[in-house]
């Protein structure tokens, strides 16, 4: 039986992992992920989840345990935030290059220095080049649904998936959501099966030193070198977007929810001014859009980006062709350049005929409050801004909510 609950975002994630029947949980506590780890530990200790909880001594080891378990034929799970994600960074690259079907929840939090326990997206953004698929949940229902779909995607395409949700805004707030029926989830998620499961019966040596050039194997057959393997990861990551859409379709048929796996538009059909954002902030922008329409007669919309990596270049460029102005609002940036999402989006638009005017806004770093009033004023300004601004000025990120 499916259940309707009012619980925290962290609990939503834990309950989804319980439904997905992950068998090895190795997570190191870090704010604001901690209650997720604690909940899983509780479920296992109470006998409500048949899994092993490994009390690892660091995040680097947490992902190492998952790499070991996944390679040896069992579905693992881990979760982290902020510096924990950074600490396991080399393992992220390892898991992706090793084509391991892993799922990890990242409860987004600002990175040090200086220390901050509050929400922004820099942790995930800083790992966008690792080869992990990155998706962003906007609310608790999405945390549940995306986590379940993530397991299936990771295992079908053998690329690890990072499910992101905002620290505190989602992890610690309470929202109603529906937890699908366990049997139905079992039917949706096939048994775990890693293509190169370590086995004495078919011994293989995994991820050893791989030369720059292609080389013959013991049967004299030419096998790719490092570059072939890495190219394959990239190309299949791109292909994974289609598979994600297929999974979402199937999920919708079974559970009645879905339909916007990559882009989730709100009032974008006739929009001239489109805000692009990821995570819970995209939901907050719905209020801004409503106000711009009602109070100012501006045809505004917000496009929530659900999948950040692989970046849906064609899909997003096409979705924005009809708009005049795009405001990309993000909680992180590529230091020394500009917003990461902004740069990716601008690059996606480059080959297309229509190039709307683009604006970049950095908001909410280190948990700085993102006031709907402030957002409304800035977005209204962007919609109204005449073309007096130089291209450089438009291209430079603006910062909302500074206090000094």
């Amino acid at each position, binding site marked *: 039986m499916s259940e309707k609950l009012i619980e925290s975002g962290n609990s939503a994630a834990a309950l989804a992992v319980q439904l997905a029947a992950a068998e090895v949980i190795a997570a190191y506590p870090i704010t604001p992920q901690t209650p997720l780890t604690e909940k899983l530990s509780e479920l296992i200790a109470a006998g409500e989840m048949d899994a092993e909880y490994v009390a690892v001594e660091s995040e680097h080891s947490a992902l190492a345990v998952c790499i070991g378990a996944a390679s040896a034929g069992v579905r693992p799970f881990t979760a982290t935030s902020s510096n924990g994600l950074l600490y396991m960074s080399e393992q992220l690259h390892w898991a992706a290059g*090793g084509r391991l079907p892993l799922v990890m929840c990242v409860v987004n939090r600002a990175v040090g220095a200086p220390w901050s326990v509050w929400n922004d997206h820099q942790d995930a953004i800083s790992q966008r080049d690792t080869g992990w698929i990155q998706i962003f949940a906007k609310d608790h229902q999405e945390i549940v649904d995306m986590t379940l779909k993530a397991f299936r995607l990771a295992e079908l*395409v053998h690329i690890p998936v990072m499910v992101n949700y905002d620290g505190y805004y989602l992890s610690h707030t309470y929202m109603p959501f529906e937890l699908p029926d366990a049997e139905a989830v079992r039917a949706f998620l096939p048994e775990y099966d890693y293509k190169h499961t370590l086995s004495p019966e078919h011994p293989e040596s995994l*991820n050893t030193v791989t030369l720059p050039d292609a080389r013959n194997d013991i049967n004299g057959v030419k096998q790719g070198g490092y570059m072939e393997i890495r190219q*394959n990861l990239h190309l*299949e990551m791109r*292909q994974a977007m289609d598979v994600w859409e297929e999974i979402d379709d199937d999920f919708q048929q079974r559970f009645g929810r879905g339909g916007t796996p990559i882009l989730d538009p709100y009032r974008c059909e006739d929009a001239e001014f489109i805000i692009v954002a990821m995570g819970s902030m995209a939901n907050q922008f719905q209020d801004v859009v409503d106000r711009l329409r009602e109070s100012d007669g501006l045809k505004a919309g917000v496009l929530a980006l659900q999948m950040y990596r692989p970046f849906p270049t064609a899909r997003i460029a096409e979705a924005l062709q009809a708009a005049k102005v795009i405001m990309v609002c993000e909680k992180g940036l590529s230091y020394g350049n500009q917003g990461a999402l902004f740069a990716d989006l601008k690059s996606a638009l480059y080959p297309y005929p229509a190039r709307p005017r683009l604006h970049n806004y950095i908001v909410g770093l280190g948990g700085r409050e993102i006031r709907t009033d402030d957002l409304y004023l800035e977005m209204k300004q962007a919609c109204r801004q005449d073309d007096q601004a130089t291209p450089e000025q438009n291209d430079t990120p603006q910062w909302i909510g500074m206090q000094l």
Partner: protein
Amino acid sequence: MTDSRFKILTSASTSGPGDAGRTGSWRVERPVIDYSRCTPAKTGKPSCHLCWMYCPDNVVSKSLEPTIDLEYCKGCGICAEECPVKAIEMVSEEEFIEGGNDE
């Protein structure tokens, strides 16, 4: 079950000899066994076999007359050093060049 449209290239090696090629080409001297001194050869009974045990590369056979696989023997000389009856001598590869070494 992986999606069959995906190749999933992975660095997964299968086993066989000669990963480093013909490692016999590494050596500058090769072990030569004097079977008149070698204990199992002399007695005709399984005995000693220290050369077999200590060979790092598994190129010495555990037979009454031990043989060396010269394709892969790296010429380390541990067998010669550990032989308790000094039945193994390390001889320069120069001695075995076909047609002699006139250059």
